[in-house]
Structures are given as structure tokens and as C-alpha cells.
């Protein structure tokens, strides 16, 4: 099915390329919103979330042949995205803490957020806002486990960190989130934490 180009290397014919493109759109593009939401909350404000996600998808497209159909495409894409974030901002462990002024900016809606579902309780926005004030290490592990519902093993693979590290960061992230909610004196669904 492969034809040879002038240099002798094999290239896909038009039909195969179309099929690959359709397969990519069906399997990978499905998770675009999830990746963009995560990037908005994790990569900002140091990095442009849309740039990060676009580069993630272009890398995924380049290596789509190495993706095994039927395996977890969402986890694969998240792993690529964290590699992009890591490459752009240095090693995850050496990230610089965000100055307080930028933390305030983080509380504002990312530019591509159209609106929040009005049926969702306002307290949810306070939890989101508090979560974005966590340190990057805590924020990313909390997002991957709580929002994306990845298993510890999957998160460990995505972040290229030991499972024990994931668990301890997660524990601290939850405790810190709770502390922020208490400090802010917010009430979550009628229960004061």
C-alpha cells in the first residue's frame, strides 16, 4: 500500500493519509476541550494555553502512528501536553512560583471561556478560583485526579513522576485547597469547611 518517493523512502498514499486524518479527528480531537480547559488552569499565566494545546496536537499528529488504537488517547494527549509544558517552562520541579499579582490575574476567566453554566452553584467558581491559586505541582495533580479522573498510575505516567509522589502531592493539594476555602470563609454547598 506504500509507494516509494524519489528518495526511496516509503510514503503513504492519499487514501491512507485521509484515513489517518479521519482517525486522528475521531480519536484525538474529541478531547480538545478537556485539554484546553486543563491548560487554561495549569499552564497559565506563564504560558499561552492555546499555543500549548496547539503544539500538543501537532506533536500528537506527528506521532499518531505510534499511538495504539483502543488505548487511552486522552491520557496519551495529556502526557504530550505536559511534555510541551515542561519543555516550555523548564522542568516541572524547578518552576518559579507565581508572584501574587499574577495569582490575582489567574482568578479571572481565561479569554476563551465563554461563560459558566448558570445552573452550577456559584460556590463552584470559588473552588475553581482557589484551585488555580495552588502551586503548579499541586494544581496539576489535583486537576488530573479530581477533574479528569485519571488513576494514580496514569497521572504518574503523564507527569513522569513516581506514584508515591503523585499521592503525596495530591494529599497536600487537597489540604491546601481546603485551607484556602476556609481562609476565604467560603461556604461550599451549605457546609462550612
Amino acid at each position: 500500500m506504500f509507494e516509494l518517493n524519489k528518495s526511496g523512502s516509503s510514503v503513504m498514499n492519499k487514501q491512507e493519509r485521509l484515513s489517518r486524518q479521519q482517525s486522528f479527528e475521531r480519536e484525538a480531537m474529541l478531547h480538545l476541550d478537556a485539554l484546553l480547559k486543563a491548560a487554561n488552569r495549569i499552564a497559565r499565566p506563564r504560558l499561552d494555553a492555546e499555543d500549548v494545546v496547539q503544539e500538543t496536537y501537532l506533536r500528537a499528529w506527528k506521532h499518531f502512528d505510534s499511538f495504539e488504537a483502543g488505548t487511552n488517547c486522552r491520557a496519551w494527549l495529556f502526557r504530550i501536553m505536559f511534555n510541551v509544558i515542561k519543555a516550555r517552562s523548564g522542568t516541572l520541579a524547578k518552576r518559579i512560583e507565581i508572584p501574587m499579582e499574577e495569582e490575582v490575574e489567574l482568578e479571572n476567566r481565561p479569554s476563551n471561556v465563554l461563560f459558566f453554566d448558570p445552573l452550577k452553584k456559584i460556590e463552584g467558581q470559588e473552588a475553581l478560583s482557589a484551585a488555580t491559586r495552588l502551586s503548579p505541582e499541586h494544581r496539576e495533580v489535583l486537576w488530573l485526579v479530581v477533574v479528569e479522573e485519571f488513576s494514580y498510575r496514569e497521572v504518574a505516567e503523564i507527569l513522569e513522576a513516581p506514584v508515591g509522589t503523585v499521592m503525596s502531592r495530591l494529599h497536600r493539594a487537597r489540604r491546601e485547597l481546603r485551607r484556602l476555602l476556609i481562609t476565604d470563609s467560603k461556604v461550599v454547598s451549605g457546609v462550612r469547611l
Partner: protein
Amino acid sequence: MNCGETKDLIQLYLDNELDARSTLSMQQHLDSCSGCSRQLNILLLQDQTLKQAARGEIIDSSRVRAGILSAIAQETQAETPHQTTNWLPTHWFKMAAWPRIAAAAAFVLIAAFLALRGGWMPGVNETVYAAVAADHAAHCSADAMMGAVNDLDELRRLIRASAKVDALPDLSAFGYGNPQGRVCKVGNAEFLHLVYYHDSQSPLSLFLRHHDSTLVTEQLTALHSGNFNVVSISQGGVDLLVVSSLTEDQTSSITRALASRLLQ
């Protein structure tokens, strides 16, 4: 299991990471210990609140989606083997002078004929027609419209903001309804993209924005792009493009009907 062991394992229980035996022990302890049960409920509530808020957030991913698909399409195009990069065939250059002159004259005549009958329009920015057709194709699947706005009040707010129009276009006379919308970047300009659905036809897209550019002219313009007909008009200070799988005449009729209402 006692309270100390529960405290150590409560996070694993919360995240479904405990094995069946430990899960059962944990449940038995939680049933009999109000203190540990309360701790679990607080953690559960915190997680649920965060998860629901994050998932309830509606974002506009259209710009990134269009950028990714466009980059992939360009790459795929570049990879196509044996593709002709010269727009003139190579044997053109081997021809004698007089047949080349005759062919060029014929080309000019054909171009003029096409321009007069509206098949090819010099001066019309065809990229925006191709871009709206691509955006229509990208956003008309149920999956692609997930997360789009379908609340009518919110859509009215969006159309006021994008096109300074107070009412949502009504296509019920043509059998289309249930509009969903999102703001999309097309041809370097932001449009409100409304998708309307029909019981037996493919979805139809309207692209609207307040007129402030030369992307769309006041003259009704129809172009065929991919599998779609794209008809544009600028009326009442609004740029409107209609994309559908209907015939050019049908798409033009819908565009005219919408344009006449824009002038009211």
C-alpha cells in the same frame, strides 16, 4: 479498621484506588464512625464542587481547533507525492510561441465569461468563503457542537455583541430550528457561528458579524466550496454568510430572506 488506618487510606478510598478487601473494611468503619464519615463527606464535597465547576465551564475552542486542522491539512498537502507545484503544465513551456499566445487569449476570454455569469469573481476574497465552509464542516457534528451555546437568551446576547442585531434569525419557514452558537475566528475576523438543524436536511450555518471590513460586499455573492454552497451579503450593517448543503438557489433564497429582515 480503626480511625488511624482510615485517616491513612481515606484518600485512596476517595479515588477508588483501594483493593476490594480494604474498600469493604473502610466502608464498615465509615458506617460506624461519624467522625471519619464526616471527614470523607467534606473531601467528597470539595472534589465534587471543583469537578462540577470545571466541567460546567464552557470554553471556545474553535480558534485552536481551526488552527490544528489547518496545520494538519497543510502538512498533509505538503506530503502529497507527485503533486504538481507549477500551476501550468511543463509541456506549456515547450510549446511554440503562437499557440501560447492563442491559449492565453482563450484563457482571458473564458475568465471574462465566467466573471460575467458569476462563476468566478475577481476581487472577491475567496479565502473567507473556504474558511467558513471549513468551519461549518468542523462544527456541525454533535460532538463538535458540544459546549456550544443553545440557551436562547445567551444566543441573543451573543448576536447583540457580535452583530448588533436584537433578534435571532428565524429559519422556521425553511424547516430549520434549534440554533446553537459559538464565536469563531474566520479569515482573521471573529464571527458568530450559528448552526441550525433540520429534520431531514444537513445542518445549515450562519456566520454573522458587525460590518466593518471588506470581507463581504453588499452584493449577493455565491461560491461553491468543498461540498457546500456559501452565499454572502452585507445588509443593515451586518455581514452575513450562509453555508449549506442545499443548492445554490436554495441557499441564496435563505440568504435573501434573512437579509431583507436585517433591513427592517
